[in-house]
């Protein structure tokens, strides 16, 4: 069977791209490093990870400058076509700024950087990333962010909830996110943004392994997607 090939995009200031590649490789995928100035993705790519970090120094707003990087046109085209895309932490912020996900991430309510293993509940299994989970299942995954408070106005929040786009919810309030939202998908379910770091939670030697089902979901869908595109 062809392995899943997953692009991991590095922006200036990304710092979890290495861990993302290691985690994907540990789960049997081939991780393809992609630079922010690359205008095209290899046609073999079946999935994309926008990793955590501080792209462009978080200047202006987190994710705002990365959203106009040359590679983002290719990411947008891939996402719009239906390919699986996961944005982790800063990657989540970038996807929101790019308009590929609803809402925006703001400084944590408590104005403190939060670095902890947290419990999140799977709220939707209707995405490829959570297809292997059970609704209500608890995953323990670390967070480490200063701006992870997901914000939307009442109308947008109601729409997102009604459409089942809330994928992960913190068991306890971590950063002031509305409705304790930790991860959210687009309407189609093929784009997921989350503040917890699944790539840091795949090896029992290093702590919790709650990231495994989410990344396995990405890997499985990436393999399928590449086959669909080839066919």
């Amino acid at each position: 069977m062809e392995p899943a090939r997953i692009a991991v995009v590095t922006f200036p200031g990304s710092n979890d791209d290495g861990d993302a590649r290691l985690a994907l490789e540990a789960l049997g995928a081939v991780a393809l490093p992609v630079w922010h100035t690359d205008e095209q993705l290899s046609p073999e790519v079946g999935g994309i990870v926008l990793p955590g970090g501080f792209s462009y120094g978080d200047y202006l707003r987190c994710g705002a400058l990365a959203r106009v990087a040359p590679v983002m046109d290719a990411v947008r085209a891939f996402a719009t076509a239906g390919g699986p895309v996961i944005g982790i932490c800063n990657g989540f912020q970038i996807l929101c700024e790019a308009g590929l996900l609803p809402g925006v991430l703001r400084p944590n309510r408590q104005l403190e950087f939060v670095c902890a293993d947290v419990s999140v509940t799977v709220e939707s299994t209707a995405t490829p990333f959570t297809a292997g989970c059970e609704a209500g299942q608890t995953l323990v995954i670390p967070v480490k962010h200063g701006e992870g408070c997901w914000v939307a106005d009442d109308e947008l929040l109601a729409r997102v909830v009604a459409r089942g786009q809330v994928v992960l919810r913190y068991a306890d309030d971590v950063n002031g996110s509305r409705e304790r939202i930790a991860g959210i998908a687009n309407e189609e379910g093929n784009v997921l943004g989350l503040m917890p770091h699944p790539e840091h939670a795949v090896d029992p030697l290093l702590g919790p392994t709650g990231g495994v089902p989410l990344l396995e979901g990405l890997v499985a869908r990436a393999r399928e997607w590449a086959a669909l595109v080839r066919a």
Partner: protein
Amino acid sequence: MRVTVLIRPKAGILDPQGEAVQASLSTLGFAVSRVWVGRLVDLEVEADDPAAARAEVERMCADLLTNPLIEGFEVVVEGA
């Protein structure tokens, strides 16, 4: 042409930074009941006249400088 953009958190949007600054000002004994912290961007814009400069900067605000979900903005064109 010098143009200044004043970016403010929208009404109703949580502004923890403003709250923290307000608390610190109160600690110093100042009578301040609310503080909002925004951002200021000065630009040198190449434009034929102030109206054109304003229109261009408003486009910049929509495209990049502000996020309309959380921020409002005011454009001030020098000498206009």
